[in-house]
């Protein structure tokens, strides 16, 4: 009987125009509300992970691998392998995740920006609407910045207008062609996105996955530091520190097992400004990556960071233990200590040595055993003070995805220019400070399809 009604129901309903309007998959929709676009940006597996810093991390001077480990890398890790020796052909036509992931995130932000632009919001909805727009602009700026650190040259204000930058995509239309902007246009766009985001974002966000004024100030400071605009960088760092300057006393940390930080997606470690972590690159796995001696040598006795971030094997080789993520993946987001270090560096470079060293000492106070004398003399000369600041920066920000961009900007200064050497199977590989290999090639597929100009190698 029931069946008969069902047939009847089916036949009658089939005639109504709504019959085919039912959604095929309930979990699928066409995003159109403010909440929908917030959900697009809250997709933290995309927006806050697989950060585009891997080529830089592999190419930097923070670690080495033995020839045996390098030879024994799985076949599929050839990009890692080639990047480690800054090879001529890095990708061997393989996929370049740093590029692809960043531009995928940029497409997401463009989808959100276009979508949110069409929404007429009520006054109650304004904060939500602004948060979506501000977050999208922030993420777009962040990704342009990260791509620029890998695939475009080092910023020099005098020549930036004639050097190639990166493709700047500001619309979601996937059929639009790809063109390279100039380096000046690239940095102008990064600053524009971040400045536009600032007034829209809350001071602090409800979770560390979402951007905030704090993270925008922090990133603005970082970009200006890279551009060697120390006054601006200092002012942004201070604005950020006004919002939040709390550090964790590392002497209070303890480990139940392997790691010192909780594995809770950045929810409870107070120093995290914006949670972001890097893809697990094979060459950077804890069993292969050996921390270089000159980095280990910087740690003074009583520095808790050596134990918290490294393990030592029987042969005295240091390996990486784990990061703010609470396990072995690399935290490469923004953090309060980075703000301290930027403030310190800018202050010293601007001649405010005492102020700069004070920032440094405030940070060190939370990193050393209290019985050790950790304080640095605030009356040092500017140049020695800068040495201290940069050493501290290397220690504190080790394996946080910043070393590559630091190498690039510091190499401009002969005092800090560094030659990186590697030895594999008896052959020595050297990366000179002024090497063109500080700019990674653009992925082969991009060149082939879009025809844009490849970087010199």
């Amino acid at each position, binding site marked *: 009987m029931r069946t008969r009604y069902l047939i009847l129901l089916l036949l009658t309903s089939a005639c109504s125009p709504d019959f085919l309007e039912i959604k095929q998959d309930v979990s*699928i929709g066409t995003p159109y509300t403010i909440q*929908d676009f917030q959900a697009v940006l809250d997709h933290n597996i995309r927006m806050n992970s697989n950060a585009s810093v891997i080529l830089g991390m592999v190419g930097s001077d923070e670690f080495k691998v033995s020839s045996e480990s390098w030879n024994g890398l799985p076949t599929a890790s050839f990009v890692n392998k080639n990047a480690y020796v800054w090879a001529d052909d890095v990708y061997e036509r393989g996929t370049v995740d740093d590029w692809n992931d960043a531009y995928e995130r940029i497409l997401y932000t463009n989808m959100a920006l276009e979508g949110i632009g069409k929404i007429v919001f009520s006054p109650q909805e304004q904060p939500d609407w602004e948060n979506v727009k501000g977050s999208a602009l922030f993420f777009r700026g962040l990704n342009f910045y990260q791509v620029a650190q890998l695939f475009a040259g080092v910023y020099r204000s005098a020549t930036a207008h004639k050097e190639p930058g990166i493709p700047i995509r500001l619309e979601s239309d996937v059929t639009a062609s790809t063109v390279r902007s100039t380096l000046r246009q690239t940095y102008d766009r990064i600053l524009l996105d971040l400045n536009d985001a600032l007034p829209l974002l809350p001071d602090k966000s409800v979770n560390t996955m979402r951007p905030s004024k704090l993270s925008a100030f922090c990133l603005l400071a970082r970009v200006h530091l890279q551009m060697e605009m120390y006054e601006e960088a200092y002012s942004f760092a201070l604005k950020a520190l006004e919002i939040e300057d709390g550090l964790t006393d590392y002497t209070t940390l303890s480990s139940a097992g392997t790691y010192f930080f909780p594995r*809770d997606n950045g929810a409870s470690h107070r120093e995290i400004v914006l949670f972001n972590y890097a893809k697990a690159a094979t060459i950077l796995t804890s069993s292969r990556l050996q921390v270089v001696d000159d980095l280990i040598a910087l740690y003074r006795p009583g520095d808790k960071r050596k134990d918290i971030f490294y393990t030592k094997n029987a042969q005295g080789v240091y390996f990486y233990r784990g990061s703010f993520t609470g396990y072995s993946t690399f935290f490469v987001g923004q953090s309060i200590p980075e703000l301290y270090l930027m403030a310190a560096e800018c202050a010293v470079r601007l001649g405010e040595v005492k102020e700069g060293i004070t920032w440094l000492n405030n940070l060190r106070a939370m990193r050393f055993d209290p019985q050790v004398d950790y304080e640095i003399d605030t009356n040092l000369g500017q140049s020695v003070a800068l040495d201290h600041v940069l050493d501290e920066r290397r220690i504190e920000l080790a394996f946080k995805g910043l070393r590559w961009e630091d190498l690039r900007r510091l190499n401009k200064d002969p005092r800090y220019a560094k030659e990186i050497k590697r030895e594999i*199977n008896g052959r020595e590989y050297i990366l000179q400070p002024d090497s063109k290999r500080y700019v990674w090639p653009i992925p082969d597929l*991009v060149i082939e399809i879009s025809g844009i100009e490849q970087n010199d190698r």
Partner: protein
Amino acid sequence: MKILFFICGFMVLSMALFAQVEISGKVYDRNTQTPIAGLRVQFVKAQRMIGTDEKGYFKMTLQAADTLYLDHIGYVPYHTVVDHNSRFLEIGLEAQTQSIDLVEVNTGYYRVAKERSPGSFVHIDSMLLNRSPSPNILQRLEGLAPGLQFVNAGGADAQDIRIRGLGTIESDERPLIVLDGFPYEGDINNIPPNTIESVTLLMDAAAASIWGARAGNGVIVITTKKNSREQPIRISVHTDAGITDRPDITYSPEWLPAEKVMAIEKQRYALGHYNYADNVTIPYYVELLRANADGDLTDGELAGLEHQLKSVNAREEIMEHLYSPALTLQHGINMLGGSQRYGFSLSASYLDQQGSVSRNGNKRYNLSFRNRFRPITALEIDLGLSYVNQQVRNNGISYDDLSVVNIGVSPYMGLQDENGRALPLLRNALSHNYTARALSLGLLDWEYRPLDELRTGDNRSFSQELRVYSTVNLTLPWGIYAKADYQYTGDVAGSRSLYTKDSYYVRNMVNRFTQPNGTRIIPQNGILYIGSPSEAFSHYGRMSVGFDSPWESAHRLHAIGGFEVRHHQTETFPSNLLYNYDEEYQIGDTRYNYNQSYTVRPLGNSFITGPAAVHRLLRNRDVSYFGNLGYNYLQRYFLSGSLRYDASNLFGVKTNQKGVPLWSLGGSWDISRERFFNVPNIDFLRIRATYGIAGNVNKSVTHFPTATYSTSNIGLRNATYRTFGNPSLRWEKVATENLGLDFRVLNGRLSGSLEFYGKKGSDLIGNDLMDPTTGVSTDYKINYADIATRGIDLQLTGRILTGKVGWNTVWIGSQVSNKVTNYYTKDATGIGVYLTDSPNPVKNSSRDLVYALPWSGLSSENGYPFVEMDGVKSQQYAEFYDRYMDFDKLLKVGVRVPTYYGSIRNTFDYKDIELGFLITWKAGYVFRRTSMYPGAEYAAYYHEDYDRRWQSPGDERSTDVPAFIAKEDMPVGHNYLSTLYLQSEALVSSGSHIRLHDINIGYSLPASLVHRLNMKGIRVKLYCRNLGVIWRENKVGIDPDYARSLYVEPRFYSFGLTGDF
């Protein structure tokens, strides 16, 4: 019926007015001596026709002498001259013994005599289906039909099959399966073959396009057994016991014996290739070498162990203990019967099938009941019900289950010692050194011993399917009938895994989550996992009105039109998980904190596995309107046409993109029925041609951007873009043309058909190759290509001997090839995309094309491949691969799917014994084999070809297998070396081969004996399948159907018994 007589009577009366010749007579079956009613008597010159009455009589008055022509399904056509001298004719018609051409085929919408439709059909009756006792219906079709290609040998699923080649590139390639008039969405294994009356393959547009948007890949119509209207109850029971040989897993060349693997591992150990950590699995032998180096194992002890390990052959042990011959039991009963008012068919069957992996298997129970009521002559109601219950048990351990990342299966690690005690094997991400110390660390035994594990768990999945269907058929006056069809299907499926407290699964969980202070987070008790249950149901409704011209005239018309609606939905629910489960009382615990990250051993931290937070509802709705028209004139000229409109609840498209109109047109001409046709020995000759358009649905494409919603790891709502929208998308269309010739000669001794067809898929949807800077690097769908498939199907049936010894033979041959005719996407200049198992489509070449790199041999200096650039040999791999090679220089070595295939089926009979065998053949294709590539040892990939590798200068003359890579030679472009060899022409071989597919022997017990048992018949059957390759073109000893398999499908023998009551 009455109306018919009325018309006949009227005609007779009117003719009488001009009466000059009165012809009357009676038509009967010569064999049975029974009158034939309803037979059409044609008078050729007068172009008049009359039907015989219930007693076979007819009467006609003509104005002049004429030719009387009789043609009736099942009988040899008859003609004679009639004139004044003819008075009462007694015509005895000879029954036609050739059955294949007389069948009615079922399109799912209507039945039509095969000879009277211009469409291309292949009909396989239950006799032929029952040649093979396979419990899967599709498997029984292999080698029986032209144009039906098994892309995967022994295929048991629609995706293993191609009907007449390809009509699409990236959309669903599966043919549509129709069961009792409705598309079947369930598991094909749920259809018990013993309930099936026939299978009809709809090959061309005229046959298939009534199925519209889903017919683009061909249609397989399965019809279950029906009650014949009037007959006493007939019962048939059958039982079948089959045995599958133990699979020979030593077939795979991807294996090296213990001694060689140990030598490689020793070398790697010496080179320092291994990382040592508690969470890194390293080969057992390397552990021993380390222990020796650390002084924990003396040289003497090591030598003793080495000697012992070298004698082990793990693969043979695995084959012996974990694989076994498998038993398949099938029992069934069918009952048919009925009177004029009521008829029924009832079948029940049981299947118990063991897997080749010991302790795997499945059981299937089925009950179907079908009733036909005819309360009044004009009304017929068909009501049916079918229930299937399937239970799959998955408790075995296969070879692949024992493989460990970066090690594979260690050939020197056996399953048991000489005393029969189970031995431990390695597991992923745990060093053996560590697990061996587990007890001393206060942990549970952490060893994995496969032989002990066989009985520590119970993994089952089950599915139940209920199908209820009804058809109401109302016959109205003037040849009109109305039909309402309805079908409901309901499916529930789920799975359950129980791990007992001693199982490795539980011990591993307990140990992993034992905290540094010794606290156990997971108690050592059973774990019960209830897999995500799913529920699916569908409603199908169809209303149609048909017309079948009732009058006796040279013009005959049948038409059907109607509409149908469909709703199909699947809902998946969250899974469930009980820890601390006590099997005896069935109690367990769900109170665990899945959000807490615990420290785990040996390293790191992790969350406890929780139930899957899945709830998913998928709903498909379709509305279709259809119409079909058939017309014939004098049973000689046939025309057919169909129209269909399909609309679906596609999401993210504009309303006018939801539907598509489709059509077909066809005609045939029965030349042998022409008066002028008077060629001796040609009984039947017909040509036919059809053309039409079917479609292909791709629900993954959208006009607007769409996103999938989920909950993130921090509990917020997430959206992932699934598509970014493409406003210019269209439906895929497949246009099919077919030209056929059917003939029967020498009084039915030889018959056959030859068909030429072409299939054009246009507006095909596929992924565009994107510039990743757009943000889309993998998935952007556009209508970018067209594909054309051409082919020839030939079937010849010969009754070579018809005497005491009968010999029938059926030859089937098909040729098929496809060509991508349009391909709009931006092309990659890199050759990598062509050197994969599914290369990018290329305009003007086959979709199945296999590309290879040219092979220039090995260097006599270092044993690595040469590459040749502009006639110069070198070893500049990167230069060669990245810059020199381009698409044009790639070798196009063949296609991966046979372009010629077919079968020869012979059946011999002598008295009550029948012997048949089926030979299948495939030709015109290539396959790529595996080999040992340089550097593979480092990936722990082992292959027999290791023994054939280049080892010293001169070897290059006899081998293509490159040298192994020593540490110091390791070039930066390591990736190139393996690609250059593995993707080279050196590893491509012809796939052509001939196979003895099966043999069957049947014996019907003598009638005298059977009657004494009060039975109608007893039949004994012996069957044997997978008898191996008779001939193959390749000289490398590989069965092309199993070029990369662990083993060749083992032989299967069965013994069956059928009894009719």
